[in-house]
């Protein structure tokens, strides 16, 4: 049973990875890098969990490695997906936390998830900086597999994180050139045009 959870997660993640891989040839190299990175980290964590002397500790470590593997890979995929969709950007950062047992139900549940970026352009919108967070993002695993689409089972809602945006502005925007400033975001805003934009667009 100890091996069952990681195998399920890896399978689900690979499905998502393959779908995103097909979405954009442009993102192929980055995606491969992300997968390799996540796989290596996952293997390390997996080996490490087998060195633990007690079942209780191993169980705890397995959950930690599950969360780490999930959040690491999904974050990588989200960044790749966002970069592939934005017309221009100087920074895209995604921090996705996996939910325990998030892969064991009909849905893939992640959260909280934060997307941060600078100088995004897309959809006729522009922004100098953006930061958005949602607590929970629940994806329909069945439809991912059957329809090859990322579909939310419940709407994602944003929440305010912090004032780190201000430091992002003062840190990096002096070197930013704003030529063809077309759009947010998403708001912005909207930034949020990738499947994972839901996590990040606010």
């Amino acid at each position, binding site marked *: 049973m100890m091996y069952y959870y990681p195998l399920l997660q890896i399978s689900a993640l690979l499905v998502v990875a393959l779908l995103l891989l097909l979405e954009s040839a442009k993102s192929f190299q980055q995606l491969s890098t992300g997968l390799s990175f996540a796989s290596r980290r996952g293997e390390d964590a997996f080996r490490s969990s087998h060195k633990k002397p007690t079942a209780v500790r191993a169980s705890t470590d397995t959950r930690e490695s599950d969360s780490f593997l999930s959040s690491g890979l999904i974050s990588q995929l989200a960044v790749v997906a966002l970069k592939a969709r934005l017309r221009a950007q100087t920074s895209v950062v995604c921090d996705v936390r996996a939910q325990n047992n998030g892969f064991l139900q009909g849905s893939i549940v992640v959260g909280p998830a934060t997307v941060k970026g600078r100088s995004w352009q897309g*959809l006729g919108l522009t922004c100098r900086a953006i930061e958005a967070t949602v607590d929970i993002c629940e994806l329909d695993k069945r439809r991912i597999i059957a329809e090859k689409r990322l*579909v939310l089972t419940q709407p994602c809602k944003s929440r*305010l994180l912090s004032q780190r945006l201000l430091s992002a*502005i003062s840190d990096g925007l002096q070197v930013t050139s*704003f030529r063809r400033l077309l*759009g947010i975001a998403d708001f912005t*805003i909207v930034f949020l*045009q990738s499947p994972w934009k*839901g996590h990040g667009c*606010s």
Partner: protein
Amino acid sequence: MVALDSRDFGNFLTHPKIRPPNISADNSKLQFLRDDISIDPISSTVNFYALLDGEKWMCSLRRGQSNERRAVIEVTRTNVVDLDDGKEELENALHELQEDNSRNLNASSFQLSSELSKFFNEIVFELDGSFLTFQDMMVTEKGASPSVILKMGIRVERFPSRNLAF
């Protein structure tokens, strides 16, 4: 949260998904202008322009004190006719006209200010399944140029289409 400089704000204001309010009196169409937007960190205002019935209005957006009304916009007309020069007979007539005009302008400004404030506070910006709403704002001088930071709520009903043109 999203940080916008003056050009970003112009792009936001004039985005096709942003539909300016109809001014209720005669259902006149308001048009936001992309250019000449300024963000003033001293007065904490964002100044932009709008056209209504051929007249240009300056709109000043600032943060309101009320939680329910965080965006406050005050509007003034920019191209008021100068009536200082004229003959004495005409001056009296023009003076009366100016007073009437001024009263109308004040009424128009008040109405436009009210409509625009309501518009910003209640705006719902829909981008292919994601709904953005205005919550709060602040003006900062940090960065290469002043910017306005909008706190926006987002509700993602569905993920944007893969084929959506960026």
